[in-house]
């Protein structure tokens, strides 16, 4: 009996110890405010970045090069840690946030930036901080759109840009007498109908992808003036005709226009790219510049081009007055500096180095992702017809609503598609069915928005 008490006591002490460690951990993190040239001799910066599955060896080399250059400039070295998926990254952020120690810099996906911001674990950039990274005005303005809720509360420093565009098969279009993709969604669907014959379809769309669907719906809703979430008034607007129209158009390509391969209800993005790459689809909407890698090795190499996706909403011939010509979400990576980092100035110096014109141009040439540095973007654009439309799309990019509720909302938007797949397979998603699903999504998004701080 006594021994049981002893064990219980040990349990209590151990638990209390752990809890206290947790407490003390979060209070750490001071900034080393200093002026003038940064001396980081003997220090090591820890950077968390997504593993590049397309160019793994080049990425390793890039890590070494960056560290060497940074050591030359400041005396400090850089240690890179990679994560394979957003979940890996989130786990790392959670542990770091809780323990108050971990990487100094995180490289985040743009749509994840609001969630990261809402944890309050990252440095909000003051004017002085922006100066430390080379000035806010060195960046392509549109890429700053998802750095924070407003200009005075920004945490994300744009590092690379990955706007979404439409890829099209030049040969198929030429054969059908079409000189370029339409700039309205209705026009695009009409062209796609002309381009569909036999086993070649007008469009390749990944209905079963976990991310693609919401980007379509968001863009079409934005163009009709519906931002999905109104952060200021804390209102979700999914339960609305504009959003319904967006879904109907997205589903209609398959069920009414019949310009998509019926198998596409099971496709992830990679399968849609594969269908386009094998010449079985004329249009491939919602791809980034990284698709170049697989397309250049495919039968359509040299036969494809990119174009900005339509910015005129479905059912319209021109942009409505309250509509926003959203060509793509602001997509790419932002860098954030952890509040707990003891080397914040050094971290800003590294970001400054990585977003310099030379380094950004070099990065684009190696990895295909586009620069966020305005000068670098200009340099890349010159004489590159393939990339030019992607850069153009980048300048027409809009940020998704900057709130911690966006993650849930995005999921709810995709969920509407996931739960509609049986209907799509049967050939029709009924209006009432869609409305019921939108209502459920609206509720999820609104609940999440109510909790947002």
């Amino acid at each position, binding site marked *: 009996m006594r021994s049981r008490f002893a064990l219980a006591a*040990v349990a209590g002490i151990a638990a209390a110890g752990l809890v206290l460690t947790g407490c003390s951990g979060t209070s750490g993190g001071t900034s080393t405010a200093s002026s003038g040239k940064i001396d980081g001799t003997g220090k090591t910066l820890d950077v968390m970045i997504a593993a590049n599955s397309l160019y793994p060896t080049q990425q390793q080399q890039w890590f070494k090069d960056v560290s060497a250059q940074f050591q030359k400039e400041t005396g400090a070295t850089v240690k890179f840690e990679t994560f394979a998926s957003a979940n890996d990254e989130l786990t790392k952020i959670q542990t770091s946030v809780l323990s108050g120690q971990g990487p100094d810099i995180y490289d985040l996906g743009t749509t994840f930036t609001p969630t990261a911001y809402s944890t309050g674990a990252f440095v909000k950039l003051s004017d002085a901080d922006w100066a430390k990274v080379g000035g806010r005005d060195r960046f392509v303005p549109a890429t700053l759109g998802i750095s924070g809720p407003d200009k005075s509360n920004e945490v994300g420093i744009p590092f690379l840009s990955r706007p979404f565009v439409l890829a099209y098969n030049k040969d198929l279009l030429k054969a059908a007498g079409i000189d370029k993709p339409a700039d309205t969604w209705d026009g695009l669907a009409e062209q796609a109908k002309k381009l569909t014959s036999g086993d070649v379809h007008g469009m390749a769309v990944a209905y079963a992808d976990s991310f693609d669907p919401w980007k379509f719906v968001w863009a079409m809703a934005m163009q009709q003036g519906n931002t999905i979430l109104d952060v200021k008034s804390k209102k979700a607007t999914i339960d609305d005709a504009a959003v319904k129209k967006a879904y109907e158009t997205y589903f209609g390509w398959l069920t009414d226009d019949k310009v998509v391969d019926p198998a596409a209800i099971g496709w992830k993005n990679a399968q849609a790219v594969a269908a386009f790459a094998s010449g079985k689809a004329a249009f491939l909407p919602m791809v980034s510049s990284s698709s170049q890698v697989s397309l250049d090795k495919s039968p359509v190499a040299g036969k494809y081009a990119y174009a900005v996706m339509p910015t005129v909403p479905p059912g319209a011939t021109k942009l409505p007055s309250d509509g926003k010509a959203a060509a793509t979400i602001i997509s790419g990576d932002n860098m954030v500096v952890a509040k707990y980092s003891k080397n914040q100035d050094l971290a800003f110096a590294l970001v400054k180095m990585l977003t310099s014109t030379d380094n950004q141009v070099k990065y684009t040439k190696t990895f295909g992702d586009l620069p966020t540095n305005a000068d670098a973007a200009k340099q890349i654009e010159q004489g590159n017809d393939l990339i030019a439309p992607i850069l153009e799309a980048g300048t027409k990019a809009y940020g998704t609503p900057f709130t911690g509720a966006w993650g849930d909302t995005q999921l709810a938007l995709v969920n509407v598609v996931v*739960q509609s797949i049986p209907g799509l*397979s049967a050939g029709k998603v009924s209006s009432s069915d869609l409305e019921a699903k939108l209502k459920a999504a609206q509720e999820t998004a609104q609940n999440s928005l109510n909790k947002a701080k």
Partner: protein
Amino acid sequence: MSNSTMTPPAGVVTTGASPAGSAPAGGRPGRRRRGERNRPLWMLLPGGILMLLIIVVPLVVAVLMSTLDLDQYTLQSWLQAPFIGLGNYVEAITASPLLRSIGISVSFAVIAAVVTMPIGLAAALATQNRFRGRALVRSLFLIPYVLPAFVVGTLWRTMLQPGGVVDSMLGAVGIHSGLWLNGPLSYWSLIIVQIWTSWPFFYLLVLAGLQSVDHEVHEAAAIDGATWWIKLRYVVLPYLRGPILLALIIAFLHNINAFTLPFVLFGVPAPQDVEVLPVVTYMTSFQSFRFGLSAAMAICSLILIAIPLFVYLRAVKLDSGEEEQR
């Protein structure tokens, strides 16, 4: 264990007895008390501390988390997250897919466990007698079980997708089944794939059970002229009752905890027919960042799992102290 649990011969009692032990009536209880006192219980401490750190502390933290309104906004100083008592549990039960997913998970786990039983049993019986190539067949049987769940998931996902191998094979014989990875059939896809990957577990346990059937029993049955069915029904199966029950319970627990397979097979958000408990908990935690709510869900599923676990512990008599009494 200690000698107090045995019934030692009278001689031993007297020789080992201290003055107190010489009292004829009170001798035994006295010995027991002192025996307990002399047990070096402190030696359990390393194991105890490990158990504490690995099981008790996380459990306590999970229970604590389940009472907090812990999300992305409060994560940074999570102990200061607002205490909401049973709020998360109420939300989990009334305003989340938890109850539905419990229904899906339990029925899926039961069906998959029950169906794998005859398959595993038949496979074990088929490979019990020596024949040429038995070792090879036995190893082949294990393949589905040793494949990692994400490989199984990817493999079946590819086969079951619209226009995939399964569709074209069924189409060739005139069956147009419809969607496998979404809609009502997805539930059965999950069960089929889980059965495919988990039946060798049953097979292994039954095979081990078969080794315990005495050779003489087989011989006696043969001499009595028992047919194979009589032999199986009245001779072999009674021996296998224990292993089969054990396998059923463990298989049920495996199935109800299966995360990787449904996650890879259907992705997230999951179609509503296959929103199993682990996937819902995961989504709540890592996609919606409602850590408190998901902790409440996890506690609910822990309770759910504890029920068969309790039955299991009774079945193998680990908790009843029966061994001690023997």
